[in-house]
């Protein structure tokens, strides 16, 4: 894990809502623009994440978070589970930090 990424995982996301997905297994860095979901960016990069409802209801796309703080927008996880910040639903949730590190 680079120092740059660790820094980004604690720095807050900018006002434009753009953030970076840092994929720790594949080593990829993907930028999520304001008008796209994390899931769309992952799919465009050829990373297969199972999904179904696309609106934070079913939990199919649940992905492990290893750094940074997700901005949970789903209705699947309980409040307690959301507060743990160790998983998120990339179909609708975003990031509160400039970088979100995923176990992908």
């Amino acid at each position, binding site marked *: 894990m680079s120092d740059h990424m660790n820094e980004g995982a604690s720095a807050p996301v900018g006002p434009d809502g753009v953030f970076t997905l840092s994929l720790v297994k594949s080593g990829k860095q993907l930028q999520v623009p304001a008008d796209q979901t994390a899931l769309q960016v992952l799919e465009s990069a050829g990373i297969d994440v199972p999904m179904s409802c696309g*609106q*934070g*209801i*079913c*939990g199919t796309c649940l992905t492990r978070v290893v750094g940074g703080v997700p901005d949970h927008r*789903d*209705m*699947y996880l309980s409040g307690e589970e959301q507060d743990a910040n160790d998983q998120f639903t990339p179909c609708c949730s975003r990031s509160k930090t400039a970088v979100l590190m995923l176990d992908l």
Partner: protein
Amino acid sequence: MFIKNAWYVAATAAEVQDKPLGRTICGEPMVLYRGEANKVAALEDFCPHRGAPLSLGKVCNGKLVCGYHGLEMGCDGKTVSMPGQRVRGFPAIRSFAAVERYGFIWVWPGDVAEADESKLPVFEFFDNPQWAYGGGLYHIQCNYKLMIDNLMDLTHETYVHSNSIGQKEIDEVPCTTKVEGDHVVTSRFMENIEAPPFWKMALRHNNLADDVPVDRWQICHFTPPSHVMIEVGVAHAGKGGYDAPDESKVYSMVVDFITPETETSILYFWGMARKFQPQNAELTDAIREGQGKIFAEDLDMLERQQRNLTRYPDRALLMLNIDAGGVQSRRVIERLLTQENNGVAA
């Protein structure tokens, strides 16, 4: 176009027991069922999961369970549970106000926030030991206003029901129509005539001679959204007619709850409440059977009439003196529809 903010009969209480029932009321597909404590509920007939009709499901412990994948629906339209799923984010489906009264399930197909039980019509003849009631349901492929026309102009009895309640004098005696607010009344009083077969039968059941001249009356009451109550009866001639003492007459109320299903179909809850021999269950059955046969005679006429009107939607129709009751009832409906669509509370 239907008046949506009003109570309609959606089913008889007997039709909604342990299984859900699918019904379309004023263009709204609904599932009717009994939830907790046997309380009736009406929801959109649409599972939020895959759009399956919930009416194909079943009721378990007061919960409606979808017959496709087991989604368990609450009577507020919110999903309670589903096997293997977290349901918190499931979108709610629409719930409708529903009330059980007088042996019927009434629903309010419009804005649930406007639904008001105090606006349910009040009838003295239901839940009253002095009266007996029997009735049935016909599903008819015609617009609800054609049924209102039919019931607010009984001259058709002479032709459609010639063997039971029709007689030439209906044609020969003019009717009068008056409007009191939303209430339209068309009356016809015939004096010193022979009773038609149905009323001869009723006279005999009430231990009255059936071979003497009678005075006969028909008073049709339309009230919104689409209920027609008809006071009918005969009295031995010269005893005061409509106002004759009970021992000289037989009379009853023809009950018609006309519930629009689509623009070209209705659920027609017909029946008769009578104030003679109320404890005689055999008589109730006999009248129900007789009335059912008589009212079935209207079905073909109404459905073929609807097909003609569908084929020629722009063709102008005649509105004659005998049609005043239907015309005035339609005017009340139009006025209330305009009010409802302009956001004015009824």
